[in-house]
């Protein structure tokens, strides 16, 4: 009971009232706005981190996509080059063949020409020989036969030569 003398009812009431006053004042001034602000900031930071994470993820996705596309493009290019090389080889092969064929043709033609020229020259030679023989015969015989008979004789002679 000695202890109870320390207590003073009106002081207790006054202290309760002043504490409630302080409580309501701090609630209005500090606790409510600041707690709200802390929550908002926390949410904002969290969303910021989330955004960063999302951006990073997206970047990685893009990178992977580009890498795969790049790989695809390289492979395609290599295939194309290979194809082109093969085509070139084939083309050169064909060219070679056709050139060979052409050359063969030209050679054949030249041979034909030569043959033709040769026979022509032979004919001309024959005529010349006929003429020469006739004139030689004229000189020898002094008597001129008719040209027609001469020619016949020489021709026969030449035919004989030919058949030899």
């Amino acid at each position, binding site marked *: 009971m000695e*202890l109870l003398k320390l207590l003073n009812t009106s002081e207790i009431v006054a202290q309760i009232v002043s504490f409630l006053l302080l409580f309501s004042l701090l609630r209005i001034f500090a606790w409510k706005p600041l707690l709200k602000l802390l929550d908002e900031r926390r949410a904002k930071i969290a969303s910021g981190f989330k955004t960063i994470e999302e951006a990073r993820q997206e970047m990685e996705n893009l990178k992977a996509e580009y890498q795969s596309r790049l790989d695809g493009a390289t492979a395609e290019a290599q295939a194309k080059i290979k194809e082109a090389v093969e085509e070139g080889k084939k083309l050169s092969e064909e060219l070679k063949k056709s050139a060979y064929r052409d050359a063969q043709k030209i050679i054949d033609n030249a041979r034909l020409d030569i043959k033709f020229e040769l026979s022509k020259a032979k004919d001309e030679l024959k005529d010349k020989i006929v003429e020469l023989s006739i004139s030689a015969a004229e000189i020898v015989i002094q008597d001129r036969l008719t040209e027609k008979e001469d020619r016949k004789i020489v021709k026969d002679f030449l035919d004989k030569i030919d058949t030899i």
Partner: protein
Amino acid sequence: MGEAGVIQPELPDFFAILADKFKGNIFIKWLYPWEHVGYSLIIIFLLSLIAYLAGRKAKMIPGGLQNAVEALVAGVDDFVCGLLGPKGRRYTPFIGTLFVYILFMNLSGIIPFMKPSTSSWSTTLALALCVFIYVQYAAIREMGFLGYLDHLAGKPRGVMAFIFVLPLLMFFLHVLAELIRPISLSLRLRSNIWGDDLLLAVLANFGIKGLPLLLLNMLMGILTAVVQTVVFCLLSTIYFTLALTQEEETHETKSPA
């Protein structure tokens, strides 16, 4: 407010000096018994001013005072929510106000011409009663009046003869515990601070010779002030926890946090 029958040294404080100077003045005579309330009001004014300045233009990017106050707010919020879970947010302002109020009152004992209001049992009992009433209110709001009575009757029950006896016993025990809490809470705080104040007064009476001891005990006084504040708030929070979460634990068979 002296201790009955014993003359005790006291540090000179503002109200005591006033009372000494104007012995005949009727206003001072009326005012002197209210000295603790007066010191409390000074603290209240100071805290409200700080809160007003800090919260007036609260910005997303804090600076200066707002930073300091926000750190305290966040600290108290973490502390309360750590003990009470997410629903502890509702009680953060109450516990936080208690914390700064008691801390400032305790520390004011170090300041010359100030006297810690918490060295008066009336002050601490007033605070403890606020805690007591709020705890009861919160518990009843959480579980309903009958649910609260059920909560007070305790959980282990239902075995034949103990159906009524044990819960009734537990009920009275719990009610007694609830009633004793504000007394123990307030006396602990008051006695620590009062003892500290008294020790400082005794050492101050030694004059120059007592100076090193006085300085040392002032530092100890700061420690005591902080520790006692933390103890008061921690116990208050635990009372909230006990009143609010016991129901949950038994229902969901959770281990206590």
